[in-house]
């Protein structure tokens, strides 16, 4: 029995019908075709499905789609405005804060959530913010350098 679900993703409102046990990540990827958000485990422990839901970093495999009723969600597809990248995306490029790129959308979601909430975090706060996101390629420190560069104002958001 499908149920009605209304949510806004990257500024676009959607109305759809989903099975009660469908996960949010499944709706994003399979129903809406937003494949930036990945899945890497079956135990909510790798963080690569992280999206921003009502301003919080949320693992989209750990909540049911119906729990996101009425929510405002941002995925990696929504970070750039057209060809204007978000400062974090620019910093990730310059500091080589990605390699295979599979964890990057979730990593950016966690990083962006922190900086939206706290534009001047300490290094420890930055490390903690991405603690739930596994990256197997970079060793994390380049990600920290990219975040620090944004915190230090090296990248301005285009208006």
């Amino acid at each position, binding site marked *: 029995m499908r149920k009605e679900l209304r949510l806004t993703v990257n500024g676009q409102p959607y109305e759809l019908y989903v099975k009660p046990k469908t996960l949010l990540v499944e709706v994003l*990827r399979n129903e809406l075709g937003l*494949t*930036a*958000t*990945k*899945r*890497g*485990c*079956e*135990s*909510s*422990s*790798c963080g*690569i499905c992280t999206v921003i839901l009502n301003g919080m970093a949320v693992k989209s495999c750990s909540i049911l789609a119906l729990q996101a009723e009425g929510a405002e969600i941002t*995925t*990696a*597809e929504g*970070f*750039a405005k057209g060809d204007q*990248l978000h400062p974090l*995306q620019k910093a*990730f*490029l*310059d*500091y*080589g804060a*990605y*390699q*295979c*790129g*599979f*964890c*990057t*959308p979730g990593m*950016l979601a966690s990083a962006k959530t922190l900086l939206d909430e706290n534009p001047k975090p300490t290094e420890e706060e930055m*490390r*903690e913010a*991405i*603690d*739930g*996101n*596994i*990256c*197997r*390629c*970079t*060793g*994390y*420190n*380049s*990600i*920290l350098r990219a975040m620090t560069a944004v915190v230090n104002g090296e990248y301005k958001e285009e208006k």
Partner: protein
Amino acid sequence: MSDKYAVIGKSHIKVDGHAKVTGSAKYTFDMVLPNMLYGKILRSPYPHAKILSVDTSRAEKMVGVKGIVTGKDTLGHKNGPWRRFPELCDEEIICREKVRYIGDAVAAVAAVDEETAEAALDLIDVEYEPLPAVFDPLEGMKEGAPKIHEHAERNINVTRRIEWGDVNEAFEKCDIIREEQFHTSSQAHLCMETHGAVADFGYDGKLTVWTSTQSNYFIQVLLAGMLGLREGDVRVIKPPSGGGFGSKFELDAAQFCASVLSQKLRRPVKIILTREEEFTTTKRKTPMYYYVKVGAKKDGTLLAKEVRVVTEGGAYTAMGATALYLTGFYSCMPYKWPHYRYDGYRVYTNTAPTSALRGFGAPQAYFAGESVIDMIAEDLKIDPLEIRRKNAVTPHYEVPGQAYIQSCGLSECYDAIEKHIKERGKLPPQRGIGIGNYAFMSGGIFNWFNTPYAFSAAIVKINIDGKVDLFTGACDTGQGSDTTLAMICAEELGVHLKDIRVHAEDTDLGPADLGSWGSRETLMNGNAVKMAAADAKRQLLEIAYTKLKPNVVYDLDIKDHKIYMVDRPERSVSYFDVVQDTIRAKEGQTIIGRGHYTPHRKGMVSPAWGFGVQAVEVDVDPETGKVKLIEIVTAHDCGQVINPVAVLGQVEGATMLAAGGAFCEDQPMDNGKILNPSIGDYKVLRSVDMPKTVGIEVDTYEPEGPFGAKEAGEGLTSPTAGAMANAVYNAVGVRIKDLPITPEKVLRDLKEKEKGKKKK
């Protein structure tokens, strides 16, 4: 140094960067084709059993199930990358008569969705007759142990001996001898994108496979062999790949099962392995029993080394035969041992097969090797750095019968690390710094795959607008080889990075190439690309000579879109004009440059060597045994750096993987069953665990490499475990000889040490 070059030596955003940070990169995991089915694989619950029968009739009746394949649907060929040695090709992939580990595949289902395919697995009735199993290689090689493969007496899969000098006689002359035993643990690659494939077998008899792989060419050739197709009828395309680390250059069950299903059903089939399958069936790092004996003179001159290794092979050969050899080779490095002997035994066991994991047998060798060097240095009361410096290989050294070293920056690396240690000064109690050093290959000279092609090849095509298409078989799995190769191409051709488009993803387009493993891409592919670019450039210069009409003693070059006289740079013509004129002069044909590289007369192992020295600082809590990583500083010689930001990424990433393996990653088993096959239970280093990392590049020029470049990144998984063990010893005086270095082991040894003191 970088001013010499227009493109290389300066950090460049990777060519795939924008797609990755915006989430628009489409991985195999993201692919959907029209009319596509989803597949799942049924796996053995027994470590060793005969398959008496497989009954798929109940599952076939399930609504939504479109097809099931078992071993009977295959040709019964056996797969393996060591194609020169048929007995080492030992994996059916879908088993016909016998399963050899928990996770061996016995059937695969294709259905309208993953859920249905998964449910159908439960309805396949397999009757097994369990057989006695063996899990430990030392047990496996005993007379009377259960036989895993008919051809392998005492389950011995491969043996390797490397020897020079007279080890026995040399030990007699040593002032001091150390004999030690080590054990290294398993480690999972943990690619964030699990293994997966979409296979589409068309009515034209052609199979197309999209897959996350480290070698399109290997998969193409192995699939063709297993399916009885011509290589040209198999097209393998690699979309962006979510990591490999050594686990993705063999034919895997997802690729094979999806292909067999698609061949049967004539519909596209997608199989993505679950995280649990990824942990239990996609190969893993090779655990080893490692015996070592070293002897030295009083002054610290190393004289003789003997190593005997028994490795846990798991159920199949995979890349394990190469790893066994490389463990033997790296066990002598990076020192000048006048007398050396290695005996390696790889033993089949009823456990998940073991293979290559970033470092390819080297990290195990260096863990033991770098630990024992510190031990003998202490015996001799010599500084650990000094004993290394005294015995380290130097430029133009020949490892007897094995390898010839040209560039070697170890000496500068020692200087840098010595300076760092001095700067750290006296450390607080429970703090220690340990060091480790290494050498690592820039691509292997092995041809067990039996390819008739060059090891690497490239094609450069210059279009009318000056845009350059670079075709290569290199496989970027995130390390950045597409960018490195584009930079080499741009540098050689005198154009900008943005003029280059890389086509590296498709066996139908690119030349055959062995792929991405053994740190081969920068040197081997780089040489092929440089040669192809030079070939194209020569064609442009021929036309430019007719325009600039230089005196014959002058020569021309290209830089920044200008073709100029080297000694009179003010006299130049536009690259773009010359491209157009060259195409006109060729009766309208596109400009094509070809390049290739295969090492010749470069020894047995590799044509060039990367080096490094690493200092690991730890803090040990004597109450809990917990080791905290404080800082890891690495001095590194990769020859000419092509893309600095990418090299640093390799150094840091490799260090993390190695530190994880040394520190917490492990795969404990019970009767062949891996007990922690989930990310929740498998501990890895996360952002909060990662210490400060510093990479110091030392400047060398490798004559064999493109613009002097060589290996960067994989080798750096080598020194960390040994350096960390040395650091723990220097901090609290306990010597951990079995990986990983867990708090339990540190605490256990601290207590033993305390007891020992009391007895005295």
